[in-house]
């Protein structure tokens, strides 16, 4: 048996004739076994107390909680690195989309000629004429000029 396998068995606390034979010949693994046993003894010195609360405390806790409160999932919470990655990917996608999608060109201001056509007038002169006529009727213009 190799030392690696022997240490794995010792870590698990497995006893076997093969391991015993290895330990009889390997001083390093014996030292490892003794150190592991000592660590186990030390771990036993950390004691814990008895719980003080019972089921009634759970009922009290539940009664104080708002119904339907939003909580984090019980298991499988998204790790922080995944959240950061998701945000970075979203920003990247946004930038790429912004570059690739063609921006709409601003529409040119129509000329007076085009406005006249759209208003069903034959020429620019009609626009002026109509405006003047409209002004006279409203009393803001006189046939001779601006009042």
């Amino acid at each position, binding site marked *: 048996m190799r030392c690696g396998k022997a*240490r*794995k068995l010792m*870590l*698990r606390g497995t006893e076997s004739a093969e391991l015993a034979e290895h330990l009889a010949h390997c001083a390093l693994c014996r030292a490892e076994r003794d*150190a*592991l046993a*000592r*660590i*186990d003894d*030390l*771990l036993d*010195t*950390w*004691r*814990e*107390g*008895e*719980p*003080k*609360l*019972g*089921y009634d*405390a*759970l009922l009290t*806790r*539940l009664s104080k*909680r708002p119904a339907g409160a939003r*909580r*984090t999932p*019980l*298991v499988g*919470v998204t790790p922080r690195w995944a959240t950061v990655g998701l945000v970075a990917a979203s920003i990247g996608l946004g930038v790429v989309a912004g570059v690739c999608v063609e921006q709409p060109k601003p529409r040119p201001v129509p000329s007076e000629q085009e406005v006249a056509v759209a208003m069903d007038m034959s020429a620019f002169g009609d626009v002026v004429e109509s405006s003047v006529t409209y002004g006279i009727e409203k009393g803001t213009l006189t046939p001779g000029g601006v009042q």
Partner: protein
Amino acid sequence: MHHDNDAQLMLRVAGGEVSHFRELFERHYSRAVSLAYRSLGDMDLAEDTAMEAFARIYESRRTYSPKAKFSTYLFRVVLNLCSNVSRRKRVVAIDRLDDSQMEAQGSDPAAKVERVATGRAVREAVLSLPANQRTALVLTRYEQMSYVEAAEVMGVSVKALESLLHRAKANLRKKLAYLLD
């Protein structure tokens, strides 16, 4: 799909027979507190965390699906909450006197002081381990779980668990070298 007795009870709770939740609580509360205590190092915080785990499991009972043993599910919830608590607190108050260290053991005051000091040193060493190494150690050493069960709770392979344990013990050897001589 596992159909252990606890899972059957939880399914009945999910189906509306909520009084069975008391039985689940009484079967597993002590172990949940123990696991939280070994992860956080503070008994009051551990009880609060274990209680919160039961409260959340109760609240989400309608969506319960027995994909693993109930105890595996419970321990995952407890460890997840412990992880959140540790992240918020960052530093566990090592210096705070812990009631569990104050119990009388024997009548020799000097020996008692030494035991308490050793226990605190071990507690500090275990709590200072990286979280996954600490959890592997706590589940297998203190909670007496099999490697298969501990690996399932942690969501890792048995091989990865063995590696974590190996590193945890190597770290403890370094941290507690002065007590090993």
